[in-house]
């Protein structure tokens, strides 16, 4: 008879075990998701086809997954960098909206020569994202306001701002829909000739490489770790704590702003109310699953991108409702998160004598 079980925290987690729990959580979550989808009437063989073959194993499917991955990498990185200095950037959506708006603004007013238009859109989106995160950062530094609340609320404010523009000055007069007019060709990120995959991929990969380098080998990255692990000790040791926190948090906001611009210039080609959908909490999920490690952010974003791609297919071809797709994605993510318990703790069972 099983009498009970004890959880014993591991002093350190072996890398192999860490990987194994991720894989096991993923397999368990996918199995559970498959069960739900079969009950909903999706034929079992189609599941394998949609979730694995069509999302990861065919060139076209892989292209879609990579396209979905690009903004996820940027927001995941944006959350992870802020997390490094104990800044919980929950409301990345606000910075994403601001970035998207900044890019749209440049496009609408045709600012700058055509050749520099796209770089200007991207640069301004980063500034806008950094500006939007500077507000909660200032509130936190000056008065200790919790950034969990302020970034979330600023996310809503940003969304209302977007709506205000789309239903007002920026409405596309050609269609009358609340979207901005489509971008000119020079304002779009070039396609790489592989499905919809665009040059935003290089931006995302570059950001990952840069973040990994900064954290891994630079003095600034080391200081950021020290600030994240013990801010008082970092201050007492004479580290420039304020500078480190500001540079990481503003950098995080800039990446989230860039994500907004990349969605507008890479896949949607216009600002609409729906481009931020699905990003609200993906940043924190990715950063947590990746343990704030930039290279792991890339891997997690890729898998999450696959999940989004498959979700889209389920909606369109099998008539699965949006709510059910979210449920299925939630089940998979929750399984992976819950599996972490077995990496962090050892379970010791006790049996009655």
């Amino acid at each position, binding site marked *: 008879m099983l009498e009970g079980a004890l959880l014993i925290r591991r002093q350190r987690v072996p890398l192999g075990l860490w990987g194994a729990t991720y894989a096991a959580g993923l397999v368990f979550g996918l199995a559970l998701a498959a069960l739900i989808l079969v009950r909903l009437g999706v034929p079992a063989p189609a599941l394998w086809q949609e979730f694995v073959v069509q999302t990861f194993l065919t060139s076209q499917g892989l292209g879609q997954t990579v396209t979905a991955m690009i903004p996820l990498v940027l927001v995941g990185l944006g959350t992870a960098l802020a997390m490094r200095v104990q800044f919980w950037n929950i409301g990345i959506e606000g910075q994403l909206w601001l970035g998207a708006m900044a890019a749209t603004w440049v496009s609408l007013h045709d600012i700058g020569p055509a050749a520099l238009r796209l770089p200007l859109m991207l640069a301004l989106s980063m500034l806008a994202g950094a500006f939007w995160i500077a507000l909660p950062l200032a509130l936190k530094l000056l008065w200790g306001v919790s950034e969990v609340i302020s970034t979330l609320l600023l996310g809503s404010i940003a969304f209302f701002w977007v709506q205000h523009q789309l239903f007002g000055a920026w409405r596309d007069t050609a269609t009358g829909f609340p979207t901005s007019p489509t971008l000119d060709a020079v304002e779009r990120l070039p396609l790489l000739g592989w499905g919809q995959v665009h040059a935003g991929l290089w931006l995302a990969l570059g950001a990952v490489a840069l973040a990994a380098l900064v954290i891994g080998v630079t003095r600034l990255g080391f200081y950021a770790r020290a600030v994240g*692990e*013990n801010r008082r000790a*970092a*201050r007492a*040791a004479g*580290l420039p704590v304020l500078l480190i926190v500001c540079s990481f948090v503003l950098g995080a906001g800039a990446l989230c702003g860039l994500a907004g611009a990349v969605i507008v210039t890479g896949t949607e080609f216009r600002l609409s109310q729906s481009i931020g959908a699905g990003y609200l909490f993906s940043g924190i999920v990715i950063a947590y699953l990746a343990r704030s490690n930039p290279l792991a952010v890339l891997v997690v974003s890729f898998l999450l991108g696959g999940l989004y791609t498959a979700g889209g297919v389920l909606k369109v071809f099998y008539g699965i409702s949006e709510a059910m797709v979210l449920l299925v994605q939630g089940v998979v993510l929750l399984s992976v998160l819950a599996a972490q318990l077995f990496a962090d703790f050892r379970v010791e069972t006790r049996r009655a*004598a």
Partner: protein
Amino acid sequence: MTPKPKTPIARPGAHPASGRAPALLLRGIDKSFDGHRALQGASFRLGWGEVHALVGENGAGKSTIMNVATAVYAADAGEVIVDGRDVPLRGPADAMAAGLGMVHQHFRLVGSFTVAENVALALRGAGNNVTLPEAARLLSDRADELGFRLDAGARIDELSIAERQRAEILKVLLLGAGILILDEPTAVLTAEEARALLTLVRALAREGHAVVLITHKLREVAAYSDRITVMRQGRTVLDAAPSEGLDMGEVARLAVGEMPPTPPRVTARPGAPLLRIAGLSARRADGSPALDGLALDLAEGEVLGIAGVGGNGQSELVDLLSGLRRPDAGTIRLGPHDLVGASPARRRAEGLRVIPADRFDSAMAPGLTLAENLALTGVSSGRFGSRWLLDRARMRREAERLIAANEGRGGGPGTKAALLSGGNAQKLLLAREVSSDARLLVAHSPSRGLDLRATQAVHQAIADGVARGMACLLISEDLEEIMSLSSRVCAINNGRLSAPMPVAEVTPERLGALLVGHA
């Protein structure tokens, strides 16, 4: 589901002293944590009506074996027999129901509750539905029997540490504990309070209770103990009675493994004046004054001891000196410079070094490796790489050097600082702080929680620095530490500092009077 234990209320004489099985018998206990063998065939025998000192260095397994006894940990092997009955204990609640009560170093009391509410909470949790007035009456009756007073209506966070400890002991007794285990009970007490506690413990033993005192302050408890068990590196190495002509030097040798080196002698050769603090004042968050016009002078090569009961402004003084907070008024002059407005970095550059009371509060990061912690203060000088890039190999070599120089056990450069024992971590912190360019060391309770050997290593490091001409401001609650290192001593009480006196003129009576503010 086990039936809720009906909690008996312990009465005097409930546990006759003789003719019974031992109160607690632990045999062949093994316990590992992730491959680290904390206990290896350890044993412990406790009789009724006995005060039993459990002695050993940090990491010897004292707390671990008692956590096994109270079923906080499950042993890998061995048996736990309580009062002759081999009943498996599946958790702390089972242990409590079997009459085993442990008073941990960090009390299990709700700070915003009164003493009576805490007791009622615990009793109700154990299935005894007392009302608040009943709990208050039980409390005051039991306190009367034991010969002390405790206000049942006082909130816990308004009580002194010693009063909280009594509240915790009473709570555990009222829960029906016949066997009382106190983990380092005197560590947080003044000498006077410690004597009162040990007298209380003797009274409990006379009533028939069995009491375990986990401690590394052997000298303090030996006179009050009927038996002494010594543990070392997870094994029980001695179980004997002081009345059998036990040689305390022998006990210490067994606990440490060999005779510890003699304590360092600090030969003060005060040189040029270095530190001058004047009119230093600061307030706590609630507006009450933490420091009130504090003034002191300190010369090179001198140790000034500041004795005092914790919470009298010591932590604020340390934070003001390290630059983690700003004073409301006053000056801190180090040599020719006023440091009041200076950043921590500037202060470090001037040779100011700080050992805080809690190293993981403001000196080291538990989640960083040793190499990273040891390089934390040196990176900005360019010792570990260029302005932009970090030289991790050099950090590693430096850590290896410091660890080797400090006979470091239990960790290499890549070990997380949190995994190190307190003594080893403190030695490495001192190695980092007391470098050749240190001019002033502010050390706050540098040996708190450390065993004898680590304490001596810490004191030696301070003495070596002082011999090189470093000045040291030693803030401590441990009078022995103050007396052995300082050349002058003053007392801090309620944010005010007494006039310093030469250490030769200090008597316990004079200092005691200053500490409580009657002089």
